[in-house]
Structure formats: structure tokens, C-alpha cells
């Protein structure tokens, strides 16, 4: 187990370097960010040249990358164009997005898995059909439609929530945005669980468990659900990274100043430091989440061993 974890951690290094390099190159291909700094007019050449030197943009890309990576290892992610440290931006953005992601994941787990179990055990019954149809609707409607609709209905028409989340972005403000963010994944979790449960229901070990006279609840939770959860856990694990990076739409609709907002601003203003810094952290989140998923397999199914 220990050796497996170390091997996985070592594998992270090339993925990490490759991903940051790609992002770095892509942002650089977009052109000279200084051109957009002076609004609808041309920066005066002397100031532009100075800004370029200060931001290190006059050096070749590989050198910029090397300097950048060197700084990153000392915890210095550079400075955004408005004079703020990127680490400072991260300090305000990540907690908000993590809270949002937690809300979304909880929705996925609680609602998704319960619905999945419910429908998996009652395949073909009206409950099953209804839930299947509902998930189909959720999957096919884009997030921004659900988001704007809920915002309009709950926020403006009925006044149940505030349409825009405040700066503090507390958990209770994030319920609706979290639900919107989770919606599509939630539908997938339901469907995955349902199929998995339905398949395993006829497995020998379940029949044995029932034959032993175990209580139904114990059979379902201990035997059936545990084995059926492997694909679901995989999905939810990879979804953590996806939710954090993909929250741009939800964050824009509900005015959440999280990672998505900072990335969006960074890309619009072609701020290499912000974009690369945030993406670097997101890559790390992805990698760690995947590692955790792999380790969870062993917990769920003892036959899976890492040597």
C-alpha cells in the first residue's frame, strides 16, 4: 500500500509539469497582455515596455516558465495585474469554491445515491420510471438554464433566497447554487447507482446473504450497496476536480467570487500568473482526488489490493 502511494505521488510530478507547461504555452499564445491594460487606447510605448519588463514578458517563453516554476516551489505565484498577490486571490477564492463543491458533493451523495438505491431495487416500477425520466430532463437541460430559472423563481418571484450570493458566501447561501452545480452529476450518480445495484442484486453473494436470514437493511447496505458503490465512487472522485474548475457558469449566475470567477477574469485580462496559478492548484486537486478514489477502492472491496 505504502509503495503504491509513493509510486502514485511520483507519477504526479510529470503530470503536474506537463499540465502547467501546456497552460503556460496556451495563455502565452493569446498574445501580449499589456496591450489590453490601457483600455480602448494604446499604452504609451515607454510605459508598455516597462510593464513588460516588470512582468517578465520580454523574456523567451521557456525562461518565463522556468522562472515561474522556480517561484512556485517557493510558494510565490506571482502578482495579478491589479497589484494583488495571486496567493491572496487564491486565499479568497478557494474557500468559497470549496464550500460550494462540498455542498454539491453532499447533494450528489445524499440525493443521488438514495435515489439510485431506491430505483435500483424497484426496477421497472413507476418510481423507477419517474426518477429515470427526471434525471433525463436534468441531464438534457443546460446548467445555466436551471440556474437562471431557479434564480428567477426562488430569488425574484417567491423571494425565498437572495438572487446573488454575498461576499461571505456562507453555506446557507450556497444551497441553491450548490444544487444547480450538482444537478447534472447528481443525475449521473443516480443512474450509475441504479444500474450497479440492479446488476448486483442477482449476484450469488446477495442471494447467500438473504438465505442466511440477514435483515434486509443489512443486506442492502453492507453487502449490496458496498459492492455497487465502486463505479459511483470513481465518478464522484473525479467530479470533485470537475466541479471546482467547472463552476464558472454557476459562479457567474449567482455572483459567487470563487475560482471560476477568478479564472474567467484572468483569461479575459490575459493574466498569465492568475490563470496558471489557479490551474496548477486545480491540477493538484484532480490528482489528489484520483489518488483518494483509488485508495477508497481497497476499503470498499478488500479483494482489490495495491502491492
Amino acid at each position, binding site marked *: 500500500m505504502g509503495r503504491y502511494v509513493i509510486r502514485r505521488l511520483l507519477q504526479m510530478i510529470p503530470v503536474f509539469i506537463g499540465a502547467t507547461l501546456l497552460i503556460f504555452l496556451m495563455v502565452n499564445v493569446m498574445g501580449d497582455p499589456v496591450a489590453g*491594460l490601457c483600455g*480602448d487606447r494604446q499604452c504609451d510605448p515607454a510605459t508598455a515596455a516597462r510593464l513588460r519588463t516588470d512582468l517578465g514578458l520580454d523574456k523567451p517563453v521557456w525562461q518565463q516558465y522556468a522562472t515561474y516554476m522556480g517561484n512556485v516551489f517557493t510558494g510565490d505565484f506571482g502578482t495579478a495585474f491589479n497589484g494583488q498577490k495571486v496567493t491572496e486571490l487564491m486565499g479568497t477564492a478557494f474557500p468559497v469554491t470549496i464550500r460550494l463543491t462540498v455542498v454539491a458533493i453532499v447533494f450528489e451523495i445524499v440525493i443521488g445515491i438514495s435515489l439510485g438505491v431506491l430505483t435500483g431495487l424497484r426496477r421497472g416500477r413507476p418510481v423507477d420510471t419517474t426518477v429515470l425520466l427526471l434525471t433525463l430532463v436534468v441531464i438534457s437541460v443546460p446548467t445555466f438554464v436551471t440556474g437562471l430559472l431557479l434564480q428567477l423563481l426562488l430569488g425574484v418571484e417567491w423571494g*425565498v433566497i437572495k438572487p*446573488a450570493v454575498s461576499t461571505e458566501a456562507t*453555506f446557507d447561501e450556497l444551497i441553491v447554487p450548490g444544487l444547480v452545480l450538482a444537478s447534472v452529476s447528481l443525475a449521473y450518480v443516480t443512474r450509475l447507482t441504479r444500474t450497479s445495484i440492479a446488476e448486483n442484486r442477482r449476484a450469488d453473494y446477495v442471494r447467500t446473504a438473504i438465505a442466511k436470514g440477514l435483515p434486509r437493511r443489512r443486506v442492502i447496505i453492507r453487502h449490496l450497496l458496498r459492492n455497487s458503490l465502486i463505479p459511483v465512487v470513481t465518478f464522484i472522485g473525479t467530479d470533485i476536480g470537475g466541479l471546482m474548475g467547472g463552476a464558472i457558469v454557476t459562479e457567474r*449566475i449567482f455572483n459567487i*467570487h470563487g475560482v471560476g470567477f477568478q479564472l474567467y477574469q484572468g483569461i479575459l485580462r490575459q493574466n498569465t500568473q492568475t490563470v496558471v496559478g489557479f490551474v496548477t492548484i486545480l491540477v493538484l486537486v484532480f490528482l489528489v482526488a484520483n489518488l483518494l478514489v483509488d485508495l477508497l477502492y481497497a476499503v470498499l472491496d478488500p479483494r482489490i489490493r495495491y502491492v
Partner: protein
Amino acid sequence: MRGATHAKWAACAVAVTLAATACGGGGDSGGGGGGGGGANGVVRSSWGDPQNPLEPANTNEVQGGKVLDMVFRGLKRYDPKTGKAKDMLAEKIDTKDSTNFDITVKSGWTFSNGEKITAQSFVDAWNYGANLKNDQKNAYFFGQIDGYEKVHPESGKASATKLSGLKVTGERTFTVKLNQKFSTWPETLGYVAFAPLPKSFFKDHDNWLSKPIGNGPYTVQSYAKGSQMSLRKWGKYPGSDKAQNGGVDLKVYTDNNTAYTDLTAGNLDLVDDVPASQLKNVKSDLGDRYLNPPAGIIQTLAFPFYSKAWNTPDGAKVRKGLSMAINRKQITDTIFQKTRTPASDWTSPVLGEDGGFKKGLCGEACEYKPDEAKKLVKEGGGLPGGQVKIGYNADTGSHKEWVDAVCNSINNALDNDRACVGDPTGTFADFRNKITQKKMTGPFRAGWQMDYPLIQNFLQPLYYTNASSNDGKWTNKQFDKLIDQANAEADTAKAVEKFQQAEGVLRDQMGAIALWYQNGSAGYSEQISNVSLNPFSVPVYSQIKVK
């Protein structure tokens, strides 16, 4: 061990859901913090994240400018209604030759930290703004002052740190020497780059940036970068335009649609950028609480005169033809819901007749005449390459809609459905990049928001040879000569006349196609009253009253 894992997950999930539902749901009541209405009421207004650090000489966009306008007062201030430059901190500004100016600062003014405002406060601030070392993006505003090229050379290192044209002659007096005649120069002093700065700005710069200190009707109470700034009324403000409310909370919105939704839900008092998609609903949502006054903004199409294809002897005919092929009225009516006005000159109605706005100066060249357009384009040798590509940036400002409409109009007029297409660029930065590197191949959008309400500001920076914002690199000797003469003219009425003659040259050569004047667009809640937009389309915050 394994069981425990499950239990933990479940417990965690249940706890979070319970906590969430227990405290969720509320939030429909409670009109936000701030405490009470009346003179102590706080206005909740939408804001955008400023792009640059908030320094007077470094702020060149509306969002940062908005704050500086509340926190700073300069020698002059533009009247929020008429746009006329009026003395604010200036007791008098005298000149005999339009080159040397004697400035006296009023007594009794202080910064909000108690420091006295003297002539030195201005001179230090201007020297800082002009100095190349400080990377100030508005440095060129000091370009007319003598010694600028030493402090801010076009390339290489600066050989001086102070402008030789600035001299402090007393506690409240200083003199300015310009490097050329510029009779209306005092009227540019209302621009925020010319604001005075306190000593703490130079001593403890970082601290100052995190909480700017100025001399305006408001002080910064707290500033959370990227999310909110709370400004509060400054009780000891000596000016006549004291704040009529207790303060302003500026909230950064990720999207102006969300801000608008928040306004309709009653969680926000003022939105100064109603999104185009909501213009249809705005009348029914807000009624009289929607403002749409003219602003000092004009949209034009510039041509790449550095490209041979567009710089032909008969090119003026083609350009004029294109201009006549655009149905301005139809586009402003349908796409912009009448929030823009078809342009008939190259300035803006906010200047007023006396200030140089001349309705109809463009004449028939700005009218929709499809037959004539077709004829002119043909006479001029046809469209370069057989097709016009209109460049714009696709990321902000919904430019695609109107560019497509303009192209449609041109295609219809020229009877050729391939005559014009839009040519989008992904980001604004890249769009600016292509422009500065002279890579544009066809006409491209060139919006202009005035810095100060002078006809000079609508012409010189945009069309004078090699001027800072002459994106199309248009150049005309006659035009340059008339601008120089106008600047040297001490009599304002005569100067305006000269500027308009220059504008006539621009029209005859069709150096750029004038499209439409843009209006400000703001909506407010029933909580506040006395809301207006100034000619820069920024709300006059200090005059807002809270119920």
C-alpha cells in the same frame, strides 16, 4: 474500521444537510446592513472589479474612475449636468500666452487624514504620475507639460524625475509651463489623473493602495479587493457638493445580469450598466427609475490606413460609400432599443452646441443611401479584396450583434451577400494587440469614451498624426494644422470653430466612420431618489438620497 468510514460519511452528509436546511430559506427580508435611511442611509450599488491598482494617474477605466470620483476632488470639476469645467480647488488659473499658467489653490482644503492641501500636493502628484519609473498608465496626460520627455522618454531611461515645467511659488501657488500653446488646457484639469495626493501616498504606498485617502466627499471605510468597497460620508468635507447620503457600498458582480436581477429582487439600489438583454424588460420592471441620458461616448469604425489596400487615392469614396450603406437608425432602434443615437458628427451631444457638438456636420455621408453607396464604392474601385471584414472583440460588450447588423445593412445596400462579414477576435487584450501591431486587415470597431468634455478630446487623440489613440494611423496635414491652430486660439468660440473645420476634413476624407452616440444606462430601486448620470455615464453618487 470500514464501518466507521461509512458512518462518518453518512454523519457528515446528514450534519451538513441539516445545518444547511436549518439556516437556509431565509434572507427574503432584511434590507441589508447600513442602518436606517435618510441622510445616514447607505446606497448599495453594483460595481466591476477595477483592472488596475486605484491610483489617480493609473486608472483608465470606468470602474476604478467611479471610486476616485467619490474620493478625490481636483482643481476643476466637470458639472454633473452640463459637463462644463468649473473651479473646485482652484481659486484662479491665469494665463497670458496659453503656455504659462499661474495656479492658486483655495485655502481651507485638507485630505481626509487632516493633511493640508497645498501647491506641493499637486506638484508631487503630477511628478509621480509623469515619472516613467512608476508605470502610470495615464502618464501621457502630463505630456503637454514642459520637461515631460525627460521624465518619460519614449525609450531608454529617464534623465529627470521632476517635470521642469512645474514650479511651486508659494504655499498655495504654483506655475505650469506647457511645451506648446494649449488654450483649453485648464479645462482638462478636471480629469482624475490631475488629483492631488497626500504624503502618505508616497511614504506608505502599499497601505495607501489598500485604503486610498483623498479629499472628496467620501472616505474609504473598507476595501475587500475584488468583492466590495464601503465608502462613507466624510463629515468635514469642505466642498459644496457634500454627500446627501451616509455612504455607498460598491459590490462587485460577476455578471451585470445578476446585478440587474438583484435590483429587481430588492437587494441592490443602483445598477449603472443595464445589460442589453434586459433592455426590453426595463420599462416594465423599473418604469421611471430607468435612466438613459446621453454620455460622452461615440462608436466608430476605424480603417487600417497602414494597409495598402485601404490607403488608395480613391479610398475616400469607398469609405464614404460604406458609411452610407449603414442604416444607423434601424440598428440603434432594434439592436440597442433606442439607447444609442445615430451619429451625425464625430463628437458627442454632451458637449453642447457651444462646446463643439454640431448635429449634421457629417451630412449625407452619415445617412442611409443604398443607391449612392453602391455607386460610390464602385467609383472608388470597389471593396479591397472584394470583401470587408469588420474586426471586433467577442468577449465583452456584445459587439457581435451590431457588427452582424452593420454587415447585413452593407450587404443589402451593395446587393452582395458576401460584401461584409464580422471578424471576431477572442479577447479584448488580443484585439488591442492586433491593433497596436498594425495587423488589422479591414475596418474595426473603435469606441471612444471622453476623458474630459472638450471637442479637442474627441479629435486630437484619435485622428492627429501618430496620436495616442489613432488606431487606424490616419494622417492628414490639413487636419493636423487646423488642430494646432485651434489649440493656440485663446478665444474658446474661435477655437471650437477651428476644431469643427478640422472635423470637416475628417468627414471629407472619411478617416473613420461615425456610427452612433452611446447613452448611459442605469436603473435604481424605490429605496433611493435624486439619481442622475453625469456626462461620463457615472452615477452622481453624492447627490443620491436614501428614503
